[in-house]
C-alpha cells in the first residue's frame, strides 16, 4: 500500500509541477495587469518541445545528452522523498532534509557541467553564476533546517511533519525567521526574481537561461520540466516545514488523503500567489548584489537560531 502511495505521489508531483509554474505566471500577469497565458501553457510547451527534432551541437558529448535525464531523475527522487500528501512513504526515509540539499546540489552540478560542455561563453557564464548562487544559498538553507531541528528534534521531513502535528501551533519566533530565510533561498535557488529572471533572455543578467541555451526539443523539455519540479519540490519542503497541517499521517484512510490533497492544492495556490506577489514587488538585483541577498537570508536564519537558543530555553519563564 505504501508503495502505491509513493508512486501516486511521485506521479502527482510530476503532473502538477508545470501547472504550479503556470499558476505563478498567471498570478504574475494578473498583478502586473497583463493578460495571462492559460494555465496549461506549460503543458503545451512541453508537448511542442517533445515533438521537435533535437538540434544538437556537433561537439556535444554524452554528458550533455545524459544531463537532462539525470536532472529530471534527481528531481523525481526529491519529489519521492518530500511528504506532500501523505507521510507514509517508503522512500521518505532515504534522506533527511540535509541529504535533500545534497540531492539538489547534484542536480545543480550536472546542469552546470552540461552547460560547460559545448564550450560557448554563455554556458560557462551561466554555470559559474549558478554555482555561485549555490554556494551562497547552501549555508542559509542549512541554517533553516538547523532551526527546524532545534524546534522538532529531527531533520527528517516525515518525522518533522508528524512532530509538528503532535505539538500544534507554537508560534516560536525562530519559525518566522526560518520561513523568511527559506523563501529567500527558494527565490534564489529557483532562478526567480530578484536573483534571476525566468522570462529573460538578456545576456548580462541571466543564469538559468544561459545554461540551457544549447538545449533544444526533448532535452529542453526535460530540463524545463525538472526546473518546474524543483520549484514544486521547494514549495513542498516549505509546506512540510512551515504549514504541515492537513498532510495525511501514517496509516490514515482514503478520506484523509483526499483532504490532504485538497489542502495541498490550496496551499500551493496560496504559495504560488505569494511568490508572484514577491516577484512583482521586487526588482532584479545586479549579480553581485546576490551575495548580499543570500547573506541576508543566512543572517535571518542564524538570528532565528540564536533567538531560539536564548528565548526558547525556558518557554515558561
Amino acid at each position, binding site marked *: 500500500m505504501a508503495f502505491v502511495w509513493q508512486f501516486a505521489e511521485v506521479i502527482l508531483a510530476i503532473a502538477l509541477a508545470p501547472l504550479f509554474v503556470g499558476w505563478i505566471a498567471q498570478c504574475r500577469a494578473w498583478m502586473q495587469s497583463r493578460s495571462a497565458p492559460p494555465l496549461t501553457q506549460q503543458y503545451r510547451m512541453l508537448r511542442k518541445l517533445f515533438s521537435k527534432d533535437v538540434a544538437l551541437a556537433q561537439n556535444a558529448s554524452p554528458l550533455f545528452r545524459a544531463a537532462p535525464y539525470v536532472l529530471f531523475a534527481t528531481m523525481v527522487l526529491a519529489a519521492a522523498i518530500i511528504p506532500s500528501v501523505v507521510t507514509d512513504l517508503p522512500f521518505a526515509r532515504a534522506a533527511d532534509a540535509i541529504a535533500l540539499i545534497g540531492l539538489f546540489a547534484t542536480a545543480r552540478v550536472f546542469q552546470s557541467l552540461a552547460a560547460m560542455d559545448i564550450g560557448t561563453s554563455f554556458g560557462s557564464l551561466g554555470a559559474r553564476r549558478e554555482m555561485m548562487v549555490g554556494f551562497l544559498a547552501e549555508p542559509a538553507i542549512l541554517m533553516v533546517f538547523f532551526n527546524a531541528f532545534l524546534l522538532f528534534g529531527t531533520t527528517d521531513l516525515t518525522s518533522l511533519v508528524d512532530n509538528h502535528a503532535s505539538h500544534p501551533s507554537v508560534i*516560536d*519566533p525562530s519559525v518566522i525567521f526560518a520561513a523568511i530565510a527559506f523563501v529567500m533561498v527558494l527565490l534564489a535557488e529557483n532562478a526567480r526574481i530578484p536573483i534571476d529572471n525566468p522570462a529573460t533572455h538578456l545576456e548580462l543578467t541571466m543564469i538559468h537561461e544561459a545554461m540551457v541555451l544549447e538545449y533544444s526539443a526533448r532535452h529542453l523539455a526535460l530540463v524545463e520540466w525538472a526546473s518546474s519540479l524543483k520549484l514544486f519540490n521547494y514549495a513542498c519542503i516549505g509546506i512540510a516545514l512551515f504549514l504541515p497541517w492537513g498532510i495525511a499521517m501514517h496509516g490514515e484512510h482514503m478520506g484523509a488523503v483526499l483532504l490532504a490533497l485538497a489542502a495541498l492544492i490550496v496551499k500551493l495556490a496560496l504559495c504560488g500567489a505569494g511568490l508572484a506577489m514577491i516577484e512583482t514587488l521586487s526588482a532584479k538585483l545586479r549579480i553581485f548584489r546576490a551575495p*548580499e541577498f543570500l547573506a*541576508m537570508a543566512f543572517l535571518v536564519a542564524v538570528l532565528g537560531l540564536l533567538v531560539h537558543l536564548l*528565548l526558547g530555553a525556558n518557554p515558561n519563564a
Partner: protein
Amino acid sequence: MLSLHLSQLDVQLLKLLAAAMLLLSFAMLSARRTQQLITLFAWQGAVLFLSTVLVAHEAGLPELYFSAALTLILKVITLPLILHLLIRRLGAQWDNEQLVNIPVTMLAGLVLVIFAFGLAQPISLLATTVTRHIIGIALAVILLSFLMMITRRKAVTQVIGFLAMENGLFFAATSATYGMPMVIELGIALDLLVAVFILGIFFFQIREQFDSLDLHHLESLREE
C-alpha cells in the same frame, strides 16, 4: 507582584516582538537609504511601544502605559517626522551611502549578538522579571546600533543610530526592571527631543561649511 504569571500566548508574543526588534536592528544595519532608515526607526519604535504595552498589561503596572504612550508619541510619530522634514530640507532624502561590505558588517553584527547573549545570560539569571530573557536581545540592539554608527559616514544616520541605541536602552530597562522611574524617563525623552533639534541645527551648519553631510569632512578640522 513582579512574579505575576504571564500567559503562554503573551510570552510568545513578547518573544516575537523581541525578535522583530532584533531583525529591525539588522535591517537598519544594512539599509542604504536614509529615508529607509528613518522608516525602520519608526517601526522599531512601534515594536517597542507594543512590547511595552504588553508588559504593562501583563505585569499590571499602569505607569508603564505612560512610558508606552511616550514612546508612541516621541519615537513613532514626532522624531521620525522631524527627521523626515529635516532630510527633506537638507535635500538628503535620496542619500545613498556607500557602506563597507554589507555581508562582513552582518557577520560582525552576528558576533555581537552572540556576545550580547552570552553577556546577558548571568544578568538574566539575577533578574526577577518575566521578561528577563529579552535582556540579551536589548543588549544586542544597543551594540548593533553602535555598530551602525561606526559604519556610517553621513551625519543624519549617526543621529538615527544614536536614537536607535536609546531604543535599545529603553527596551533593556523595560525587560530587566519594568522600566525606569517616570522622572528619568521624561528627562530622557526631553533630552532626545532637544538633542535632535540641536543636531538638526548642526546639520545645517555642517552642510553650509562643507556642502555635504559626509562626516569625513570633519577630519580636516583637527589640529595639524
